[in-house]
């Protein structure tokens, strides 16, 4: 009798308990799904790496979704072109300074658990970032051809923007200016490419996730 009552009680409680959403589609890029949990995980890891508190508001989710879309487009292109990309072991070098913040491995893992992220998730996040960086560098940087006039014009523009910067000649800063301009143009080229790819694919945001 008691067991029957217990069963009935359990059944009633079960029926009354609210459903918990495990995951749902947040954005689709062509046939690729970015789920709400993907967004939350990425926000948590980014905050962990920044040492800040995660923020799960709609705007932050949308920003994260956009970043993940760009990352998907670049890595998908890398996979299709069979580009040589960093291996999973490459993340070890990135993890070392991070782990160095903690007294030992146990503290590190405890910090991860507190932030509700896994070591595997963190490694995957770092690897994706590394691969994106490498591929962007390979895919877009070689296209840049910067002229002498372009370098000088950029240097002068920089100096105008920063009148308080120490007065140094163009020649003294040539290497740095060249790197800055190359990086800027690489990012511009990447942005243009991503914009074009986005226009060719059907990208749908599920607004309910971003509210």
């Amino acid at each position: 009798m008691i067991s029957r009552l217990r069963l009935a009680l359990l059944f009633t409680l079960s029926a009354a308990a609210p459903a918990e959403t495990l995951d749902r589609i947040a954005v689709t890029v062509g046939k690729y799904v970015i789920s709400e949990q993907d967004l939350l995980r990425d926000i948590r890891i980014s905050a962990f790496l920044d040492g800040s508190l995660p923020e799960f508001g709609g705007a932050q989710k949308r920003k994260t979704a956009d970043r993940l879309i760009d990352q998907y487009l670049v890595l998908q292109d890398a996979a299709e072109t069979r580009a040589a990309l960093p291996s999973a072991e490459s993340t070890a070098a990135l993890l070392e300074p991070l782990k160095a913040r903690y007294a030992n491995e146990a503290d590190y893992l405890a910090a991860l658990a507190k932030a509700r992220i896994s070591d595997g998730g963190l490694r995957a996040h770092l690897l994706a970032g590394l691969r994106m960086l490498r591929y962007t560098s390979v895919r877009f940087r070689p296209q840049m051809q910067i002229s002498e006039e372009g370098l000088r014009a950029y240097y002068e523009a920089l100096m105008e923007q920063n009148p308080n910067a120490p007065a140094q000649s163009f020649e003294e800063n040539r290497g740095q200016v060249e790197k800055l301009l190359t990086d800027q143009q690489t990012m511009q080229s990447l942005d243009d490419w991503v914009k074009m790819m986005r226009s060719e694919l059907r990208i749908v945001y599920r607004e309910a996730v971003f509210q």
Partner: protein
Amino acid sequence: MIARIDFDPVDQPLPRAELDRLLPLRTGALLRAEDVRQTLQKLFETGRFADVVIDALPSSDAAGPVIVRISTTLNFFVGGVSIDGIDDPPNRSQLLTSAKLELGAPFADGRATQAVEHMQERLEANGIYGAKLRYQIQRDPATEEASVRFQLEAGKRARFGGVMLSGDFQRPMGNIVRSTRWRRGFGPLTFPGWREVTESRVQGGVDRVRRDFQKENRLQVRVTLDNLEYDGKTNTVKPTLVVESGPVIEVRTLGASVSRGRLRQLIPIYEERAVDRALLQEGSRNLTNYFQAQGYFDVAVDFNQIAPAPGVQEIDYTITRNARHTLAGIEIAGNKFFDTATIRERIAIHEAGTLRYRYGRYSQKMRDDDRDAIRELYRANGFRDAQVTATTLDDYQGKHDDLGVRFEIQEGAQWFVDQLGIEGASELDARYLRSIIRSGEGQPFSESDLAADRDTVLGFYFNNGYPEANFDWSQTESAESNRVNLRYAVRPGERQFVRDVLVRGLETTRQEVAASRIRIRPGDAISYSQIAETQQKLYDLGIFSKVQTALQNPEGKEERKYVLFQLDEANKYSFNAGLGAELARIGGGVTSFDAPAGVTIFSPRVSAGISRLNFLGIGHTVGLQARASTLQQRAVASYQAAQFTGNENLTFTVSTLFDTSRDVRTFAARRWEGTVQLAQRLSRANILQYRFVYRRVTIDENTLNISPELVPLLAQPVRVGLASASFIQDRRDNPTDTHRGIYNTVDLGFALPQFGSVIDYGRLVLRNSTYHPLSRDVVIARTLQFGYIQRLGGIPKIPLGERFFAGGATSHRGFPANQAGPRDIKTETSPGTGFPLGGNAMLFHSTELRFPLIGENMGGVLFHDMGNVYSSIDQVSFRFRQGSYQDFNYMVQAAGFGIRYRTPVGPIRVDFSYSPNSPRFVGFSGTRDQLLACNPKLPPAQNPPACVGIPQRINTFQFHFSLGQTF
């Protein structure tokens, strides 16, 4: 642990079993975040779902504490798209295409609105600015189809309201506006007002302006339509044309004349409407090839481009033809594997001949192309190192101005396939693939075979449900010399099956008519060839103007897919009308008895017809065709059931015919006829026809050109019920201009009293034609025709209308049309008119040698025809000589020459024949009254002068003009 997996809604577009196979989440398994993530991905990849949410609910189930609930939102796909209220142009098809609603593609929200915008653009391009387009979307959750029905209220079409011109146009504006033909007018006459706007009229106007400038040698003219400015108040459109006329470009040839038309063909600047060095050089090469093809093999062509004045460019091609040569010989050396005849079949250059290619067919380019063709022939047969050189030999065999071409072949070793491995295919498939691919162990190895094998293998997989199949190959040298090992690697990918076949768009056609033509069934592997075959069978019904086919959700990764057929029914009625003429040498005048051996007659003809397609919605056709000429009036009403009872090999036809025909000038017959026929296609080449014909034939006595005594015997009204069967075997390579093959027909029929016949007879007609190529262009063809009528009972003589009449362009060219066989001769009771009476047997044999004559399109024929129409089977004779003026039972011989000119609808032909033993006979010259006044029993002196018979003869020379080969 997962206690259960529920779906919301319970009914999902994919069967539960397929979902269970697809999803990583499993009842009884641990609930893992990664599996949940993958479930979202897998479900979305199917393309069936617009959104997916996965929830967890607590469970009291002993299997586990969690129930996973997967909530889905369905996607929809374009089903059928239709439109009502069309005001052509644009026509229905153009407008629906502009909607860009692709059959089977995802139908996202807002697609209908986009479609309306696209259609509005198309309508506006056709001058329809005030159109109202409404639409209704019908969604079917069961099949996830979204059908869209548009309703168009077109409103009034706008007219042109003037033309704006800008740019540098160098011509009076009025001139340009006239070129557009946007003003109302007829030819050079212009009337007040403007025409209605249509897209083709706008584009045509722009093109005409451009052409008019080009006629003035402004080849680089640019005419663009910049804008169409619409004025809603007046409902008019004012186009803005931007014209940049460019320089006048004069192209001249110095040293040799080339017609302007030929120059336009040879110099690409006319077609490209641009002038640059590359195009001018191409023109130079084309001119060189052109002159070389004329025999000027040493021609030199150079060009010079100058600008003597602003806006003028002159291009001079200087042509030095040098001496004209003749290609006297082609030598082929070094060939061991292929004989010279096989290699010669591959080459296009040709030695000079008497009529064809007077100087031979040669140019350096053709020679080099031939060299490459020979090399490819060797490489395709395993001689991968084969080398061929082509050398042109001057003063060939010591004769000045003669050229020779020598192809020197170094075959090298022949390579073979030692081992062939096929990976990735099942054992059964691999065995089958080995039987259909070209490469095989012990077979010659060639890359062209590899390419063909790739297509064959992929075709096999594509047609067996593997749309993503991949094929790769590699080769390694075998241990044995000149042998390679081949490895074919196949990656079939996921197999896809037919979920169901959805047929849409049927309005008046019955569903079962379309269903019976569909070769694909649910559960079958998706086969693109079967889908295409079904599409063709639906077109073959002749009742659909458009048959679209697609897979629903083509990009979706799902195991089973819907196959869609969207059918647009054709217009129910079709009309045709035609004008034509017959030119033939046939019997004499209608009211006189002159010229029984035939005179040349020209007979104009008109025809008209109406057909009602898809009668009763079952794909049958009802038609009425009428034809009238001075020789014949004919009306045929027919009912045709193609693909009868759903069997694509059966065609059932019921027809009635009324015909008044004078093509045999002995008489004019009036015929009422009803026919029921079932045609059965036994195979691609063989057809059987079962037929019952009931006819009533009356001879118009006023038109009879026979002795009055014969009238009661031969010209009484006749009812004939004839049951017959025909077998047709057609193995010709090209029915309009056959080079090889066989054509056989057998027709056997019986007219019996049980069928309502007043005359009982049996009738057999046989034909056997064979065609034998002697070389690539020379064919010998022969045909035998035999016919036999055996009277079995009823009236004493076979009436005129049932007899064999033959002779003319398609049977025996020694005769005018229908002039062969027995004639009305003078007897004790009959004065005799000399006109043909037909016969009860016929035997003809023709032989033709068909050969090329001049250039590519003109051919010649030497022929020999023999045979005749005989009074009866026992009178069939091969005798050469005519026994007497009353003897027509002998074999008439004719030989001659014909010319054929090749056209897309078959050769136009003219035949000239000479018959050394054409029939002689005694004919009558006079009127019917004069004939009736004759009494054959009286001596000639006591009869009027007109009663004296005049000896005549079928002209020994005949000509025939017709379309198509003789047989």
